[in-house]
């Protein structure tokens, strides 16, 4: 283990704890145009619904509390109910009219918000394809030029203020892409192409999570969205375009040999090495990500040891098998993975 490796754990741990601030994964996050519109519309609905609710409760309380002539309790008045009470009939009609017009107002507000969300991000500047897998997210930045294409997993970086369209696909079952601080959700359906548009408005780190039940580890299929300034985003992109650095230490070299020639490379790809599996997440810049195993754990050396040694105890049912590494192999693999910045 290198000193640099150890040092990098500290800011990552800090970032992880900073993540626990209030709107990390919340519909109140207000971090994108879509989420802001949601919150405005939600408040409108809440107010109108609260008024309707209070009207019902007021009527209920009044009916219970209404004074009645003494001595007449528990008697059914003969014939009285056959008369129609014009006052109550008027009240019924007005009630229907009030509820009806309230609902019409809400439906119109909803429609307007829906249209404006659709137009807000119509001219996207950035296109990403996210593919759902049991239980992780494959992320690909599309660019006209293939040499500009970036592939990563479980983490999305977005430049603030730039409309982005995220194309959604699924390799297996139905998943749902949901980063509540940014926008509503959109399903990933095998055999169908869906997409969602977002205009991020606030720099920050936002957690998202699969929102459609997708099997054993549905609860641990999370992703991190990192909204950066435009300059940081471009820096990140440039870095992601680089292939993985060659291992330097003997231990990392041993790890490289294991990862590229044994079980790991069957599923995982690392750009610039022979490892080119496509079943599991791309590992080219694995150690630069914030989490391991689709948000199951924060990225740290200790967690990396735990995950590589026995994924099934951390995320039971995960498609990554526990392969039973020898201690020296484990040290080597972790050392190599930590170089994949």
């Amino acid at each position, binding site marked *: 283990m290198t000193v640099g490796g150890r040092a990098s754990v500290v800011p990552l741990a800090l970032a992880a704890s900073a993540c626990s601030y209030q709107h990390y994964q919340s519909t109140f996050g207000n971090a994108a145009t879509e989420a802001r519109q949601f919150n405005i519309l*939600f408040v409108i609905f809440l107010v109108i619904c609260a008024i309707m609710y209070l009207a019902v409760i007021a009527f209920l309380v009044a009916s219970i509390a209404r004074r009645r002539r003494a001595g007449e309790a528990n008697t059914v008045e003969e014939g009285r109910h056959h008369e129609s009470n014009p006052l109550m009939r008027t009240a*019924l009609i007005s009630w*229907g009219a009030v509820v009806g017009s309230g*609902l019409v107002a809400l439906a119109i507000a909803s429609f307007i918000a829906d249209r404006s969300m659709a137009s807000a991000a119509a001219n996207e500047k950035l296109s990403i394809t996210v593919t759902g897998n049991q239980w992780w997210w494959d992320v690909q930045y599309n660019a006209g030029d293939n040499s500009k294409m970036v592939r990563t997993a479980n983490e999305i970086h977005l430049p603030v203020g730039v409309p982005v369209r995220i194309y959604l696909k699924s390799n*297996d079952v139905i998943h749902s892409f949901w980063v509540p601080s940014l926008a509503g*959700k959109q399903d990933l359906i095998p055999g169908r192409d869906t997409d969602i548009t977002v205009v991020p408005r606030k720099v920050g780190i936002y957690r998202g999570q699969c929102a459609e*039940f997708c099997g054993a580890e*549905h609860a641990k299929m999370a992703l991190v969205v990192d909204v950066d300034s435009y300059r940081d985003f471009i820096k990140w992109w440039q870095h992601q375009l680089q292939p993985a650095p060659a291992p330097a230490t003997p231990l990392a070299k041993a790890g490289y040999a294991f990862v590229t020639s044994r079980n790991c490379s069957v599923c995982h790809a690392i750009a610039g090495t022979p490892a080119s599996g496509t079943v599991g997440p791309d590992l080219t810049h694995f150690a630069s990500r914030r989490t391991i195993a689709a948000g199951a754990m924060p990225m740290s050396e200790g967690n990396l040891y735990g995950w590589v040694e026995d994924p099934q105890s951390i995320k039971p049912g995960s498609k990554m098998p526990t392969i039973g590494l020898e201690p020296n192999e484990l040290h080597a693999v972790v050392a190599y993975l930590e170089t994949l910045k």
Partner: protein
Amino acid sequence: MSAHVPERVRREDERLARERQKIARDGPKLKGAKLEARLERTWSRPRGIIGWLATVDHKEIGRRYIVTALLFLALGGVLALAMRVQLAQPDSALISPQRYNELFTMHGSTMMFLFAVPVMEGVAVFIIPLMLGTRSTAFPRLNAFSYFMYLFGGLLLWGAFLLNIGPDIGWFAYTPLSGPQFSPGKRADIWAQMITFTEVSALAAAVVLVCTILKTRAPGMTLARMPLFAWAMLVVAVMIIFSMPAVALASSMLISDRLIGTNFYNAYEHGDALLWQHLFWFFGHPEVYIIFLPATGFVSVITETFCRRPVFAYPIVVLALISTGILAFGLWVHHMFATGLPRVGYSFYTSASMTVAIPTALQIFCWLATMWDGRPRFQVPMLYVVGFIVTFVIGGLSGVIIASVPLDLQLHDTYFIVAHFHYVLIGGAVFPLLGILTYWYPKITGRMMNETLGKIGFWMIFLGFQLTFFPMHLAGLLGMPRRVYTYPAGVGLELPNLLSSIGAFVVAAAVVLFVINGLFSLYRGAVAPSNPWGASTLEWAAASPPRPYNFAHIPVVESRTPLWDAEGELPVVTGLRVDEKEILLTTVVAATPDLREPVPGASLWPLIAAIAVGVLFVSSIFSPWAVVFGAIPAAIATAAWFWPKELKRHPEPVIS
């Protein structure tokens, strides 16, 4: 007609006329204790275990339905407690992901298919013939068959769960997760066949209820005088008939995808994963109203009795029931707002979903107006009505919120939805159910439930419910999706989840108290007179509990509230046979006497047929050939069931 009648025929007619005179009928000559003893002999089922299994008495079948459904409620509740223990703290590892997925699948499936719908059918099967003033349901053997199919479906699901092959795909079983590729093994098949059992059962019960309500009402009980609960059940039964085929089709296609490799839902072989969602929700959304509308019937019944005034604006309530029943079929896409169907098309479903709030709001107004204009007394059933209004309206309004596409895209599949539908289903259906069980308990058992225990239980469940489910709104807004076995610490979800878990145990304690009250009162409760609440409808004219024949004479109805309006004894019609089981059929709208209809006696064939069909369903999980070979015993059993009666000449024409 020619005047010349052959002598032989004339003599035969005269003999029949003489024999007709000898037939025992109720009337001036046969009444009182003598009549009751005679009816008791005719209408009682054979004694012993055979008679118990063969009974076609709607009261016995209704009681079984209710008790079985309440047992499934308890089982589903235990699963809910297990889930709440797991979710009480973040990153909990008490329950494995696989087991947790089984728990919520079993909880949802049990509550929807084995508790909520059957308990409503059970209450209806028990009370509707009494409420309508008749002696039996239509098709009583089909009614018995329906119960057995329901029971076997429940036993299949829970037997599988206890054998560790319970389903783990959610109560909604979305494809392709439930398909052959992603759910190998038999778990998904168990779920799909349980659905088949409950479909058959619900369809049979629905046919029984529609025919009972339309054809067996007491003379004079025109559609415009029919109790509101009967109206609710009529709408519900018709909804079952229209919605169940959609899920029958969906689950049959799922089974054939899994069993014989059809590819209805396989997107890579020209199938469509979304087809399942359309078919499932075309059933699934009306299902919610199939559970809710009977409860509105309960609320109308209780409100009328305890406010001492007929429900305000009866025609509005009836129209609200019917329009809800129709609108319920136009809402299913609001479960699919996140699937990427065309956005503008979604607006139609937003509007339809909001529109359904209007009839419900009108019904709420009518109940409140009844309370306002009446003299409410707050005994336990009425407390449940108040609890219903306070709770259900929140659920209805959160339903308006999620009808909006932009809002639903955030809230869909979060705990906000979990909060919403528990407010609607527990507040909207279980509260009225507990109220109506307290209300009809004396009619079912002959004794009153304890009022003090009932009131304590009401306040516990009412407050415990709010504590459990209100924080879930917040959990959803804070980003907690549904169907997750755990959630991370530090995102603000700890407190709402802990409160929900505490509340769940308060609700469970209240349910236990309700059951204790029910069992205690069965032996120690005050003996109930025939009309302990001073109610207006016909079931209270029968004894508590009713005799096997329900009414010595069939009552005649002259208003919507016959027991309040009759001066002295209820008017009756006479002339039904008492030596054979016979009921009076009346016309559909005006309820004028139409026909006398013989009622089939106790029979084991419904049970045998249910066993044969059950064996077919269960074995077809394992081999498609079971459908072929299993059909043989099923065909034999149903043929025996419908074997024509002996062609002896009856002394009078009988439709049989």
